[in-house]
């Protein structure tokens, strides 16, 4: 009898649907069916048992091919790379669990590495705004139960977060929102007529790159000041219409995406979005939320904040104190300046996401990819270490886009012999400690005899 596993969390996007039902074959080896997931989430599960998987670490050979090696050899190689590097960079973590992130941080601290996550090239600009202006937010169930006005600004959940609108924002019937979509006004602000804009009551087609001005006009209008006839390509009446709806809301949420953090203005766009939310709270209740991308990209920001006080761009190279200065300690900037001499790509694909110049610099030095799958990064690595897929083969805690921790389950066993990120990093840590101890022993032999040195 095939077995049904219920309440399964989905390892795709920051919506973190936890209502999946996965049917596993009799022998527990094959995933047969996935219910409730979107097309992309569905694919992740089927991929796990659908085709060939990398089951052993692969080390690059002089002729350019990969040769399979044991996990022990891979751990030893990785530890030596870290041990010998002056400034290694450990980057990624959008797609693994918090246990893995905590273990990786232990390794980074031991090795004196820079530790960074995908927010560095994604919602990092949101962090900059949050450092300056705060973050008046809520959990997604709060939006579902109370919100009568929803704003999507620079975000297209219809494609990027397929079940966001049906689970939390536009369509669900919550406690105080029993009529679902009928009781809600939807405002979408986007230069494109996206599929999300299709379901909006009001779509403001802001001129691309002019979001900041439009926010400014919103703030002025909320406070009752006069605004120009047209701002950012939007007529005054349409702005006032939207502002009126927002001011009269009982509870509203602004969901914003890459359209704010990666168009002109970047962190300033997010900053003024937060200010607008602050202003609106003088009249009624408003909240704001970043549409975080990967299912656990919120995780490293949480884990490393409680461990070091910084969510990303952590420079641990001093080994005794952590330091964060995006621009100086951020992955792409470090790579562009050719400042790192070893690179770990963990649970992401820097090969696909980083600028080509950054990748070229990183390729000059040892590059290790830790990921269940073959991706661009794994194909240009010196060492590729496969791990189990979190949410499918490895359980653990992940943080949803609203910072709510979701406990993910294991549906099937990983391919025989394949270990988790957490175990891998624990083993690398142990090997690092051994290497340090060996070196300390050698140092003692080399050390000068005890005595008084002459003044120099």
């Amino acid at each position: 009898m095939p077995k049904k596993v219920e309440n399964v969390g989905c390892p795709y996007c920051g919506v973190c649907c936890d209502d999946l039902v996965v049917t596993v074959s009799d022998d527990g080896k094959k995933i047969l069916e996935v219910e409730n997931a979107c097309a992309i989430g569905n694919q992740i599960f089927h991929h796990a048992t659908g085709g060939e998987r990398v089951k052993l670490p692969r080390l690059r050979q002089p002729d350019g091919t990969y040769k399979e090696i044991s996990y022990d050899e891979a751990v030893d190689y990785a530890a030596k790379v870290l041990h010998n590097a002056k400034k290694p960079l450990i980057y990624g973590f959008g797609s693994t669990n918090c246990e893995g992130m905590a273990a990786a941080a232990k390794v980074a601290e031991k090795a004196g590495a820079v530790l960074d996550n995908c927010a560095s090239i994604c919602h990092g600009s949101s962090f900059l705004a949050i450092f300056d202006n705060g973050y008046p937010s809520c959990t997604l169930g709060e939006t579902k139960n109370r919100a009568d006005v929803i704003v999507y600004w620079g975000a297209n959940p219809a494609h990027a977060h397929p079940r966001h609108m049906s689970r939390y924002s536009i369509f669900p019937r919550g406690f105080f929102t029993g009529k679902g979509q009928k009781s809600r006004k939807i405002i979408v602000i986007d230069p494109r007529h996206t599929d999300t804009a299709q379901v909006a009551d009001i779509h403001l087609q802001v001129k691309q790159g002019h979001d900041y001005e439009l926010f400014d006009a919103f703030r002025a209008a909320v406070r009752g000041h006069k605004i120009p006839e047209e701002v950012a390509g939007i007529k005054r009446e349409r702005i006032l219409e939207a502002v009126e709806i927002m001011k009269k809301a009982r509870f509203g949420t602004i969901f914003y995406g890459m359209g704010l953090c990666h168009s002109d203005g970047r962190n300033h766009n997010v900053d003024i979005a937060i200010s607008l939310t602050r202003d609106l709270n003088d009249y009624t209740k408003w909240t704001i939320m970043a549409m975080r991308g990967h299912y656990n990209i919120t995780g490293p920001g949480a884990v490393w904040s409680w461990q070091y006080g910084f969510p990303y761009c952590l420079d641990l190279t001093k080994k005794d104190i952590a330091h964060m200065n995006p621009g100086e300690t951020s992955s792409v900037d470090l790579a562009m300046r050719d400042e790192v001499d070893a690179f770990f790509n963990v649970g992401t694909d820097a090969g696909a996401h980083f600028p080509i110049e950054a990748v070229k610099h990183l390729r000059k030095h040892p590059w290790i990819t830790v990921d269940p799958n073959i991706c661009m990064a794994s194909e240009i690595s010196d060492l590729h270490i496969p791990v189990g897929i979190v949410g499918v083969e490895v359980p653990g805690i992940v943080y949803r886009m609203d910072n709510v921790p979701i406990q993910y389950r294991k549906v099937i066993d990983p391919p025989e012999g394949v270990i988790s990120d957490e175990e891998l990093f624990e083993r690398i840590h142990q090997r690092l400690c051994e290497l340090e101890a060996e070196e300390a022993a050698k140092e003692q032999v080399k050390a000068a005899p005890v005595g008084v040195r002459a003044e120099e």
Partner: protein
Amino acid sequence: MSELLIKNGFVFDPLQGIKGDRMDIGVRDGKIVEPGALKNPQTIDAAGTTVMAGGVDIHSHVVGPKVNVGRLFRPEDKLFKSPLKRCSRMEMGFSVPSTFKTGYDYARMGYVFVNEAAMPPLHSPHVHEEIRDTPIIDNAAMPVFGNNWFTLEYLKNNEIENNAAYTAWLLRATRGFGIKVVNPGGSEAWGWGLNCEHIHDPVPYFDIAPAEIVKGLIETNEFLGLPHSVHLHCNNLGNPGNYTDTIESLKLAEGYAPKNDFGREQVLHVTHLQFHAYGGDSWGNFESRAKDVMDYVNAHDNITVDIGQVTLDETTTMTADGPFEHHLRGLNNLKWANVDVELETAAGVVPYIYSPKVKVCTIQWAVGLELGLLAKDPMRTFVSTDHPNAGPFTRYPQVITWLMSRAARDETMKTFKWLERTIDATSIDSIDRELGLYEIAQMTRAGPAKALGVCNTYGGLAPGMDADIAVYSLNPEDMPSDPAEIEKAFARCAWLVKDGIVTVRNGEVIAEPAKRTIWVDVKVPENAQVQRDIYEHFLRHYSVKLDNYSLFEEHLFNPRVIEVDTTQ
């Protein structure tokens, strides 16, 4: 078998009534034993020093989502304020330290048990992840109930038994410790941008008043017989003239008697009382009403309090009192984080600078100390800074010193810009009382342990209890004339033994014994109605599935469970 003998110290153990007698304390296998029972112990010479049980903190925000927001959104709290690494992990942050720094610093001060003051139930896996990463100290965490929809519905209908069954279920689901109430009704009202400032303001939609919530939860707590009492953060925190609301809240405990098997004698713990003891009707005529509030507390045995002392630092305020944090951001216009949590609670975080140059701040400083010094029963009045709200916990040594030394208070008051106005608005200048080491032991270990219902394990030095022992370099027969020396002694204990393991020596952590998670497991009869209500709310209103809500066993770190059986 590991044995330890702490020899010849001046022992202060209020749970046994030991007041500075010169004695030996024996330890075997992590427990305290009669010294005579030891065969071949390792010896710590404690002659000329003070020996107390490990410290117990009844109210501190150290783990969980709002604490972590405070860390995340304040990089400036790390800048030039973090010490260099000297234990196994880095230590970052000042007002909201990293989990590692939290554990190490508490240990250095001789503390072993810290009760996390507010756990949003939906976020319990986060709380337990941070507990795992907080070394050495044992942690408990109290889920918040005062704005929980289940609780509001049951109490509105006066269904104490159902509320008790739900409470037992939630304590198990979150691996929680007791019933925390923050701004009852007010944080639910904040869902609509509103508040309940007074205890008879109705909660929107739910149509119940804060007073009924508090009384209902006291009844629930005593119905279940939990180790700790209801732990209340009153309505109308931080506003001029709020002392009347506070006294009204305190009066809600009248007529209730404790029912439990844990030695607890109160039915209500009111936390950070300093924030609730203000007179006047504006910031202009803001004044202390500590005496009025403390008079009431002194006269009523079924109440305990902690002071919430302002330490005059730049710190980070954080509370489940969402509307208050919004109010505070309007006052100082700094950055503001807010998290409303579906069906359960809210939270806000705002940085705050308590400056000796600001009159309100120095009056707040005086109010906290007045409370501590006017207390008639130090077994019911505890040291806290509501960490990090009124100041970081690392200032406890300074708070203790202010309580122990008039000279230390005078020294601090000299730095006040508005000294005369502060003196006019408070009674601090007319209080000469200086607390002794026995009273400090009552306020920092014995009292909190008893109020938490854990005094069979923590807070004392009787044989059979956990071997958690702090030794401070203070000679009670020859106390230093310079109060700075007292502060130094409490900041870095000479020795800390935790679970029988020597953990701190000369103020430095030398071992990291395994820490524990303390939680309360209550057995109640099956309750089909409550099971159905839980099922319904999760089906329709929560954004997570019921089966993913309860903490998975694998995420509970090194548990120590306290069992309560109501079925017998």
